[in-house]
């Protein structure tokens, strides 16, 4: 029984003992080797899918690094890099609207993520013991919110009534808790071996200590994934800022990008540089895009191998 469970959980490990991580593992004897045409077709589709993601990003990055001369010559976006320059980034990050927006985004993301993680981990642990007092009631109260939304207008009126408009709390509090994420964490916390928890309890550890010293270290992978989910959520958010903030100086990076890209504006303070120097407005826009996508593109592959855990466990299990 345990053996087959183990095999079910990690079929790749049992079926494909990896020698080098690049080498193709042995094919099971019963599986016929693929034909050339099939292999080529499969490869072509996969390569095309990857290029569909990478080529647009390449163009954005290269254009952000191009001089005004190159951009004028190509008539717009640049595909082949020529005389790389960092002038757009220098201008953007030497103070002014975009620098401020980037700082706002970073701070909101950091504060929000830490807050959300603390609240979610505590709640997930609090709910990880079925049969505890109020367990079912609390769980149902949380889960019911996955089936309905209160609606945009009442939520707006509430945030206004609480006096959160024009404060950064409006960007954090309304979206601080994701019930889905709590359920995923809870699913993992429940999977921690009860013997371990019990022995800690016998040794006199309280719940906070068990959470901090036993459950959390054992759930590092899923905590990393959920942290990424929350962080990406805060980093990508723009809607709450657009309805709750009225001061342009408070706007996070995404909202500035909307102004630049959708309305073809040039960041405040950069008008002179664009008119006079060899800085292209397009390069500025692309550079803001790179700033917005860089943290995400760097961080998400790091946690990639754990994504599956964050997607499946707990969400379906009541």
């Amino acid at each position, binding site marked *: 029984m345990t053996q087959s469970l183990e095999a079910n959980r990690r079929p790749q490990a049992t079926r494909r003992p990896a020698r080098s991580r690049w080498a193709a593992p042995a094919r099971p004897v019963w599986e016929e080797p693929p034909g050339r045409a099939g292999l080529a077709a499969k490869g072509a589709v996969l390569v095309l*899918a990857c290029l569909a993601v990478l080529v647009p990003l390449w163009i954005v990055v290269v254009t952000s690094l191009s001089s005004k001369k190159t951009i004028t010559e190509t008539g*717009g976006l640049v*595909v082949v890099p020529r005389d790389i320059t960092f002038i757009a980034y220098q201008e953007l990050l030497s103070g002014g609207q975009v620098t401020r927006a980037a700082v706002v985004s970073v701070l909101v993301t950091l504060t929000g993520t830490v807050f959300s993680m603390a609240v979610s981990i*505590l709640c997930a642990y*609090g709910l990880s013991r079925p049969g505890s007092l109020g367990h079912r009631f609390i769980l149902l109260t949380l889960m019911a*919110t996955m089936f309905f939304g209160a609606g945009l207008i009442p939520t707006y009126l509430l945030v206004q009534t609480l006096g959160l408009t024009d404060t950064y709390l409006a960007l954090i509090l309304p979206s601080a808790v994701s019930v889905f994420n709590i359920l995923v964490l809870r*699913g993992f916390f429940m999977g921690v071996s009860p013997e371990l928890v019990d022995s800690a309890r016998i040794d006199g550890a309280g719940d906070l200590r068990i959470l901090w010293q036993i459950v959390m270290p054992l759930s590092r992978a899923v905590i990393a994934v959920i942290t990424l989910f929350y962080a990406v959520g805060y980093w990508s958010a723009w809607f709450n800022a657009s309805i709750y903030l009225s001061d342009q100086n408070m706007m996070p990076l995404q909202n500035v990008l909307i102004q630049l*890209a959708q309305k073809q504006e040039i960041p405040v303070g950069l008008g002179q540089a664009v008119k006079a120097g060899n800085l292209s407005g397009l390069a500025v826009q692309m550079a803001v895009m790179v700033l917005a996508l860089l943290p995400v593109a760097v961080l998400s592959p790091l946690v990639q191998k754990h994504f599956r855990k964050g997607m499946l466990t707990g969400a379906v299990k009541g």
Partner: protein
Amino acid sequence: MSTLDTKTAEPAAPAATGRRTPRGRRRHPRRSRTAGHVPFGRRLRRDRTLILMTVPALVLVVVFNYVPILGNVVAFQDYDPYISTNGVTAMLQSPWVGLAQFERVLSDPGFWHAVENTLVLFLLQLVLFFPVPVALALLVNSVLRPRVRAVVQAILYLPHFFSWVLVITVFQQILGGAGIIAQTLRQHGHEGFDLMTDPAVFKFLVTAEGVWKDAGWGVIVFLAALAAVNQDLYEAAAMDGAGRWRRMWHVTLPALRPVIALLLVLRVGDALTVGFEQLLLQRDAVGPGAAEVLDTFVWWTGLRSQDFSYAAAAGLVKGVVGLVLVLSANKTAHLMGEQGVYRK
């Protein structure tokens, strides 16, 4: 219930789900002997840390998910936001109008136009978007080399983490009037085009953006389901003479069926919510004719035109129909013998 009993009661149930477990799971040491008979006071004392731990999240959810439900009373009023900046005061002093707002909503062609756009987009995404992750997952799963696989996955997952602002700007740079394709065409003497502002193709554009952003991410769920397929089944099928395609038809697809059913249920339950942020960002460029869906309709009438009561009524109609959709979709899944979002 003794520890031994719980062991036999649930053979190999991984990370049990709580609702169905008998009270005396051995995870809780002191409960096992006296399950069901612990007096309330003792349970409270025993579990108070656990309850306290859930309080912050519970407060946030109650304040931001439950309290606003009460705010829906403005749908039955003629809410005047200028009475007071305090919403409660304004609500108390605004006149009640009964169902007048709902009558207005239901006889508004703009509302029905938004409903139509929402449903067309939903169907389009169901047909053109939904099968893509399944196909991609089968492809990725057939890649044997672990490194190649990891690289492909990393690339395909990436756009999921980009904000809609980024995704739409990228599409604008590629397909827009000043985009790279139109620009290349113009340089070679052809006429340029601007897909981003063309209402005729807008719904396909929205679907394409969705595929670009999330199709790769959707692969994960199916990959996990594929990894859980018992490999002996494939071997047995091969022994019986089943070729590659027949193995896929008779082993792989049945294994994916529960996941597909679950995701379909989720999708149908969410039918009235089609990419709010995505459409709001493009509403100005392409015009409300093609881009107005229910959510953007509520946003426009409420927050832009300041007609709060009217927008709240429209939102309430959407919310109620949406709830009915989720619940009936779940019911259908249960009837089909699949697991829904919640268990019965």
